[in-house]
């Protein structure tokens, strides 16, 4: 059994009009299959990347693995526990939540603009009751800030005082605060500039090594994924069409869709 097991994961969305409108206009229900029977495993300490274009269902999978969206069918088993297991007691549920954290796409929307950085990073520590003493909490927050390349001075500032890259670092520090084992990175660098993107990707790599983190890395950018992943899954309209190591995927792509994607990626060396 792998560390994370995604088994026959399926999610439907009901996009139909309200029943009263349907009754009047005679429309049928419209059901969108966002994720269709997806299977994959992630080993501890590895990075599994999901790549796909818009509408491929990659963010939907991320939310289901994070336990904030209920699958229509199938399951996500993390270290033999399931978020949607009705038998899961409160302590195990909290433990599972603590273990799984997320880094988001937008450096602007992912931090509460009314909160100071110190409180943002301290919130998971308080919520999971990791450290009771306020002084020790403060020390821990400073430690987290330093781990992501920020400093004690930043503790009393608000998010708007930081650049996009720095905010993404704060987001990472918040994710690390609960001492997680899994971090789901949903397009963590797609709104950053190239030079800042490199800094954040390198930071994620260092943290993975230091804390033996497991990543589920979501991106539309094959070049970014090629530098991050141990295994790559290619998604097309909710279906996992190909799964391979970077070496196999980029050198010997099997599926036509993967080949098309690879051909479309602008490459620096083409010139």
């Amino acid at each position: 059994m792998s560390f994370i097991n995604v088994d026959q994961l399926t999610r439907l969305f009901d996009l139909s009009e309200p029943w009263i409108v349907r009754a009047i206009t005679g429309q049928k229900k419209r059901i969108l299959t966002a994720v269709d029977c997806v299977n994959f495993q992630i080993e501890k300490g590895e990075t599994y990347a999901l790549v796909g274009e818009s509408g491929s269902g990659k963010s939907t999978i991320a939310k289901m693995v994070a336990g904030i969206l209920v699958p229509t069918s199938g399951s996500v088993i993390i270290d033999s526990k399931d978020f949607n297991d009705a038998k899961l007691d409160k302590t195990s549920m909290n433990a599972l939540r603590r273990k799984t954290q997320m880094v988001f796409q937008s450096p602007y929307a992912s931090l509460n603009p009314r909160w100071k950085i110190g409180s943002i990073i301290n919130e998971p520590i308080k919520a999971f009751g990791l450290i009771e003493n306020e002084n020790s909490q403060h020390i821990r927050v400073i430690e987290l800030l330093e781990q992501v390349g920020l400093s004690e001075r930043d503790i009393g500032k608000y998010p708007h005082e930081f650049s996009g890259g720095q905010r993404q670092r704060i987001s990472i520090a918040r994710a690390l605060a609960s001492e997680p084992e899994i971090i789901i990175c949903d397009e963590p660098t797609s709104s950053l500039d190239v030079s800042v993107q490199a800094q954040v990707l390198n930071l994620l790599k260092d943290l993975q090594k230091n804390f033996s983190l497991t990543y589920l890395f979501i991106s539309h950018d094959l070049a970014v994924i090629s530098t991050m992943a141990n295994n790559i899954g290619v998604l097309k309209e909710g279906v996992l069409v190909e799964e391979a190591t970077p070496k196999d995927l980029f050198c010997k792509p099997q599926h036509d869709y993967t080949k098309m994607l690879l051909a479309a990626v602008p490459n620096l060396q083409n010139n």
Partner: protein
Amino acid sequence: MDEPLLEIKDLSVSLKKRNTISVAVDCLSLNLYPSEILGLVGESGAGKSMTGSAILGLIESPLYISAGTITLHGQSIVEAPEHIRGSKISMIFQDPLVSLNPLKTIGEQLVKTIKTHFNISKAEALERGKRLLSDVGIDPERIDAYPHTFSGGMRQRVVIALALAPDPDLIIADEPTTALDVSVQAQILNLLKRLCIERGTSIILITHDMGVISETTDRVAVLYSGRLVEIGETSDVLQHPKHPYTAGLVASTPNIDPHSFHKKLFQIPGTMPDINDVPNGCAFHPRCEHASNICQTQKPPLFNARASCWLLETPGETL
């Protein structure tokens, strides 16, 4: 080389807020030649979109052009932007919905644009509109469709058709593919390249994506903090960068390369300065590993018509 189509000379765009004036584009000089694709690349806040707006005469208060000239065919467009903007220069934005009227069919919008610029009948304009659509790869039969019935990539094609309608000499494309998927992006870039060759239109392609620059442009100008740091043939600039910033930018761009799987990327420390707080001398010096004393005090001029870096002052010295 030919006469340049567009000449930008010592262009400065400033921002006046309260009692402080900050410089968003600082003494920028560029030439653009007929049927050439020039890339303007830089990170957010580097002044690349601002340069595009200046060419179009779209600079509005609190921003203003504080120095310099922009000439198209030898005529200044700073003084007479309205007249030239419409017929000689077109614009393509990142979000196609900005340029399309959702309440009108694409045919109506095309005909209106064509009739504004050419004195022809409605039937002729319609005919011309259909030709434009097939030029950009849209079935001319769909001329009576509304913008919302098209997908994102198709909408961007419609926008390009609209941009081509006045038969412009210059198209400014500001991040035209940033909102699109990679597969669609490749199609749009190919379309732009083809149009440039077939119609002889020059294109200024504004983007943050080094890959897009590499695949599409003939020449590239790299901007940093509102200043031109390097300009030259695209392949030359990307493969043998002369400015440390260009070199860092190229090195930190992730690339699919079997030798670099799992390897750490090169990273430039720090971030681009805020325009209110640009350091003295070379704006890049606090992030530059080659910085020397002169870099901290004096702005480097453009050496060898290539890069603004004091390293190039001594001949033979390279990165």
